[in-house]
């Protein structure tokens, strides 16, 4: 791509409501970067330099607009005490949640973000990428929101039941996780990575809008408000079907929302004057469809969304699958570029 602006300059204009030379392009290239760099996944998520080098390689190959420091959403839960296994060529797997129920929330103890779990891997990766290309490309690091972390600290199904049977204990646990997450966020800020708040398990595919508003949203908002103290523009990503909760999303105070399985026309009509939209090419399609079809569909998506009043970022709905063919991602980039 021969552009007038660097990705950082482009993002800088987007967040102050100014037109850009083209819309930013943001396939959510996370662990897929390991495949691009021909790297074992375990190396990617256990070593900051490896994670960074994979991300830089992917950015070099595709020329997309953001670096994404991320592997999976158990990061904070692991740092707080849940046990994970690290398969050689797969993402970490939760083996033993720290707590058996939300009622055990008092067992959560303050931890040092830089010595707990793999958080230091993220920070090291952020440092490396920032030093390498931080003047030109925004460095994003995805941080799981409290609701998603809770589902990695307590057996997931049990916690979902407790939302109804033990709502006070669930809230208490979420509050403690929120406080811990603030410490992690602060550490990340000092490493110059812009946090992206991800709450995949607060999706409409998992909980109702009522439960979302009661248990997920307040904690998302508290983190976002905390980050707004630093004047940061915060992306909130929620996986799956968020159609039922579209109208609630502005209450999170997020600046940009990354949407997955939602009709973007509806999203634009209902949110477009209040939020910058990011989305939402189907990740199954980017994995399996032929490149020419991907390019065509992405171009159509961009044509639909590009005039969103508060701005738009052409993205995949969720993470690009690890084994997605490179040609497919390149087709996405071409479609987004020409559509823009």
């Amino acid at each position, binding site marked *: 791509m021969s552009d*007038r*602006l*660097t990705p*950082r*300059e*482009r993002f*800088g*204009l987007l967040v*102050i*409501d*100014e037109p*850009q030379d083209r819309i930013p392009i943001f396939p959510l290239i996370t662990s897929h970067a390991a495949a691009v760099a021909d790297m074992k996944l375990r190396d990617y998520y256990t070593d900051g330099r490896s994670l960074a080098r994979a991300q830089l390689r992917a950015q070099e190959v595709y020329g997309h607009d953001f670096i994404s420091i991320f592997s999976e959403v158990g990061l904070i839960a692991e740092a707080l005490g849940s046990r994970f296994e690290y398969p050689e060529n797969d993402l970490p797997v939760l083996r033993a949640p720290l707590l058996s129920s939300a009622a055990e929330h008092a067992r959560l103890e303050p931890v040092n973000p830089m010595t707990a779990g793999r958080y230091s891997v993220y920070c090291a990766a952020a440092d490396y990428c*920032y*030093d390498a290309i*931080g*003047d*030109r490309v*925004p460095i994003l690091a995805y941080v799981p929101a409290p609701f998603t972390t809770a589902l990695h600290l307590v057996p997931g199904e049990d916690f979902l039941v407790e939302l109804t049977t033990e709502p006070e204990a669930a809230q208490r646990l979420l509050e403690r996780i929120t406080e811990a997450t603030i410490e992690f966020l*602060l550490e990340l*800020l*000092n490493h*110059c*990575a*812009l946090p992206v708040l991800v709450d995949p398990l607060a999706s409409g595919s998992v909980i109702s809008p009522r439960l979302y508003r009661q248990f997920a949203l307040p904690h998302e908002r508290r983190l976002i408000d905390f980050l707004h*103290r*630093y*004047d*940061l523009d915060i992306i909130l990503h929620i996986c799956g079907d968020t159609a039922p909760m579209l109208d609630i999303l502005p209450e999170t105070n997020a600046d940009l929302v990354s949407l997955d399985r939602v009709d973007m026309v509806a999203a634009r009509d209902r949110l477009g004057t209040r939020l910058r939209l990011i989305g939402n090419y189907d990740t199954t399609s980017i994995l399996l469809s032929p490149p020419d079809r991907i390019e065509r569909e992405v171009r159509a998506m961009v044509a639909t969304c590009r005039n969103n009043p508060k701005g738009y970022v052409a993205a995949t709905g969720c993470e690009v699958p690890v084994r997605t063919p490179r040609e497919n991602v390149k087709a996405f980039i071409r479609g987004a570029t020409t559509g823009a």
Partner: protein
Amino acid sequence: MVYQDPSPRRIAFSEWSEQFRQVPDELIQRFRYFADSGNQPWATYLFPPLTFALYGSRHLKRLKFDNSLAALRMWGFVMNETERLFRARQIGRRVVATMGDLGVTPPLVLGAGNALPFYPDCIWWLPFMNESSVLLDAAARAGIGESACYSRAALGAFIKRSYFPDPALCIAATGASCDDFSAVEQLVESLGFPVFWLEMPLRKDCEGNENLGTVHKQGQSPIFRKDCTDYGHSVREFITAQFRSLHQHLQQVLEAPLGVSDLQASLRKVNHVRSLVRQIKLQAYSAPAAVLPALELMVIEFGNLHFYSDVDEWTSILDHVLRTVSQRAAARRYLGPADALRVIWVTPPADPLLLSYAEDQGLRIVGSEYLINQALPELPVDDDPVRALAESLLQASLIGSTRYRAERVAEQVRQYQAEGIVISGILGGSHCALETNLLQDYLTKELDLPVLSFDVPSPGSLIQGQLKTRIEAFVEVLRERRRTADGGHE
């Protein structure tokens, strides 16, 4: 709302992040730019260095900062300027690029209430602050490469159109000044931006002429003397005519009247700023030890150029800084040791890390000649304001002899008992190549002081080892001279 400044200290990036946690939300919400445009949510600016580092200002991770709330305000306000300029256009203000004259034309622009002047020239810091070649590369592709000074970054910014909104007008001063920047201005015009050319004449500096008198009140401009020859008269008439023409043109472009009372009101605001800066510098340079770091002092001095795009809020910040340094001086609470070595810094260092490093090594800046002498003195308000502005241009650092600059330095050496002089040359700056040696020769002979001169290398994350060694050696020379002067005791 309780927030108290901690004991004065220069602190690193991460320390500000930690300290910022104690800053109440109410304070963040209280300080806003464009206060007259309503309670806009985007108008806050009290944020720590990490905010701006996250958006690409990588050098902030390496600098040291004053730990006062006033300094935090100052940094947040200065670093926020790009956004402020775009917001200005969004709320209907007319943004005018003033270029090359460094501080003289903005008061004229400010007189038109809805207009806002800014200096693209100041973009020259960005390659250093961002540790980035992005803007220099863009300038190189447009035809100006390493043979010109870092001010070429401004051309890159014009090409990018993402560092400031397209100006309603560019006022381009040229002539007896920086030829590198004149080339930048020509290329800006070639990009299609509307340019009004302002010719700066050569000043004939008269020395030893008993007819020469000071222009302004004592203490404001001790060196400049009116040239009362026929040449001097014609120069003053020429530049005044230039300014009258600019005055007319501005009214047409901005579609706003720019009457004498408007200009006088503008000059009063500008004088208030200049007065505050003068007082801050006086406090800082006269105190027994440092009450404000050199970096903050330089940023404050450069605020005289265009007030970082909001003169009212900048004035409030300067008030805050002055209160802070006055309280420190009164309480004898200092930032650095009393035995720091007192030096004058000549030519802005381009790389702000040099000032932090110099202070780390035990130097204390007690005077400066940052090439903006024309932006420092207060202006006569009650006379013809256009003529007053025009004549103030004749005090410009760069449009006369090197001796003029040297005498300004010498004056400060005597006033603040400086023990040495640092001259930082700008790589590619043609005037630096010529002037540095002349300045060094003059100052060494006249003052018998050690002078360290060097060219600031290209933007990067570190100070080159060789340069560090030279600064350290310079510090050792100054220490040895002080020991000798004290009869072997320091």
